[in-house]
């Protein structure tokens, strides 16, 4: 469905120093530098997969989506989407894909969304009755039918995104590139968009590549994630394995039966939280068994639970660019257990 090999994109940008001197230099002797936004990225996506694309701002996610949708030409490597080279932008290809950008809209600002939908219906060669039927169907799934006759500028951000999705999916594309579709939306609107995307993927078997800064989007929708860092793909595999890779720790939650000093607790591991008798400890996975044995022996807790750290707390720093993920070197590589022929970019560490 979607294969990317050694994909790269380098932008040439003007380099200007601030101030009068910088302005004069820029006027007479302009300097440029090359910025590698994406470097040597490899992956494949199977039909119907819902894949999350993670990384900090500027990591290369949007640039990759732009190359896959055919908006920009790769500087190196190759991308194929449903057998088409995206940048050729053949009409047969364009009729099967869509790109939704959370911060950009295709709807005409001053007119009701229905006017934009009328154009999309004609441009994608749907008959009038087919377009009407699809608008009704998608409008119902999005609970947006009542919004379509209001000028777009009068809609709230969440309502606008619903209409944007309707416009982007009217031609029923097989491949969806979604770039931050829930950006800036309130919790309810995010949930509503999330639930719609899930149903759309299930109902039409569409392949989805989603970037989002909201972990809830990724955890609710994507079983597989691609992580990019400084333009390189550093992880490709299951979301659960990513958490395991990112943190070698486990969280132990226990309920104390008698008072224990913080200093004593710290001898077992990092104290994540303490609320009276309830304590959360972060413990190295390798030391888990012996630490539990010590806790039972020395603290005699009334209750004890072990679990993985919440994915949000693990991946959050990564999305803020605070943490570099390195590809697995072990035999249990990130793709272990995956049925598709996907592979991590092991040459990027």
């Amino acid at each position, binding site marked *: 469905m979607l294969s990317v090999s050694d994909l790269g994109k380098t932008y040439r940008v003007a380099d200007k120093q601030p101030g009068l001197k910088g302005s004069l230099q820029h006027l007479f002797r302009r300097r440029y530098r090359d910025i590698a936004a994406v470097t040597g990225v490899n992956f494949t996506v199977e039909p119907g997969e819902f894949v999350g694309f993670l990384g900090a701002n500027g990591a290369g996610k949007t640039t990759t989506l732009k190359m896959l949708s055919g908006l*920009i030409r790769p500087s190196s490597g190759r991308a194929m989407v449903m057998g088409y080279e995206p940048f050729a932008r053949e009409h047969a290809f364009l009729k099967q894909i869509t790109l939704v950008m959370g911060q950009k809209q295709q709807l*005409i600002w001053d007119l009701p969304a229905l006017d934009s939908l009328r154009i999309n219906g004609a*441009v994608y*060669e749907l008959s009038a009755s087919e377009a009407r039927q699809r608008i009704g169907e998608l409008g119902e799934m999005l609970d947006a039918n009542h919004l379509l006759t209001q000028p777009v500028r009068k809609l709230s951000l969440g309502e606008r995104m619903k209409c944007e999705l309707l416009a982007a999916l009217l031609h029923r594309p097989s491949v969806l590139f979604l770039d931050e579709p829930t950006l800036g939306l309130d919790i309810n609107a995010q949930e509503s968009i999330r639930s719609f995307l899930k149903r759309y993927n299930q109902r039409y078997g569409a392949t989805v590549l989603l970037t989002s800064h909201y972990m809830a989007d990724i955890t609710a929708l994507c079983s597989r994630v691609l992580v990019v860092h400084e333009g390189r793909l550093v992880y490709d595999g299951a979301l659960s394995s990513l958490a395991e890779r990112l943190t070698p720790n486990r969280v132990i939650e226990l309920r104390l039966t008698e008072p224990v000093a913080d200093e004593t607790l710290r001898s077992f591991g990092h104290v994540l939280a303490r609320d009276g008798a309830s304590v959360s400890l972060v413990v190295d996975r390798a030391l888990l068994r012996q630490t539990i044995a010590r806790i039972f022996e020395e603290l005699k807790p009334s209750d004890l639970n072990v679990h993985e750290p919440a994915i949000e707390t693990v991946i959050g720093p990564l999305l803020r660019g605070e943490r570099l993920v390195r590809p697995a070197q072990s035999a249990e590589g990130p793709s272990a257990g995956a049925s598709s022929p996907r592979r991590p970019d092991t040459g990027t560490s």
Partner: protein
Amino acid sequence: MIFLRKLAALLVTAFAHTTTYRAEMVLWALSGSMPIILMGVWFQAAQGGRLEYSPLEMVRYFVAVLVIRQMTFVWVIWEFEESVVRGRLSHDLLRPIDPVWHYLANHFAERIARFPAVLALVFLCFWLYPGSAFFPGWVVMGQAAALILGTFVTRFALQYTLATVCFYNERASSLESLSFIAYTFLSGMLAPLDLYPPIVQQVAAWTPFPYLIFAPARLLIGEEVDVVGAFQVMGAWTLGMIVLQRWAWRKGLSRYSAMGA
């Protein structure tokens, strides 16, 4: 048939968009009323009797210029520039239809919406200069309408070709400002071209500009014009521009970075 359906949808929606702001539509029509001012100046000058045109002929010429300017006004370079700079072109590029049809639909819709205001301006001129009202006959009107359509297409092709410079320099509209000086001077917008010195007329003949205003204006006021020749020259320029534009478009798209998108 399918293509016509696409064009009809683009045109209908563009018309709805244009007519959303009625006052703006009238103000745009008024902003193109420079020929009415020039009409007054040349009316006075012609009263001296030293020009080849009588005062009423001068009024009629500028009424024709007014109509032609209003019906051939092109702004695609600004629209395209904004699309490129703000990344809005991305949505157009991902649709299975060339973006040029979207721009053309916007221009045609605006023309249709503006037409009543243009008619009102024409009647205002006839009222200001009694005896200047004229009707060149249906045949000439038909020829002039075709010529004006050709003029619009040529002017659009020239500007759209310049617009592709946006892929290389985001402020391509500055080129249009430069080209507009030549257009203003050599098209007959400031004065009938046959009042210019012969050398200027010879230079103008090598450009498409005389065919953009002077030729259709002379035709409208009942003067003899080589309509076939005018179409041939405009056709050659338009074809040349389309070839150049397509080449620059293909090259330019490779540089497009979908900024802001």
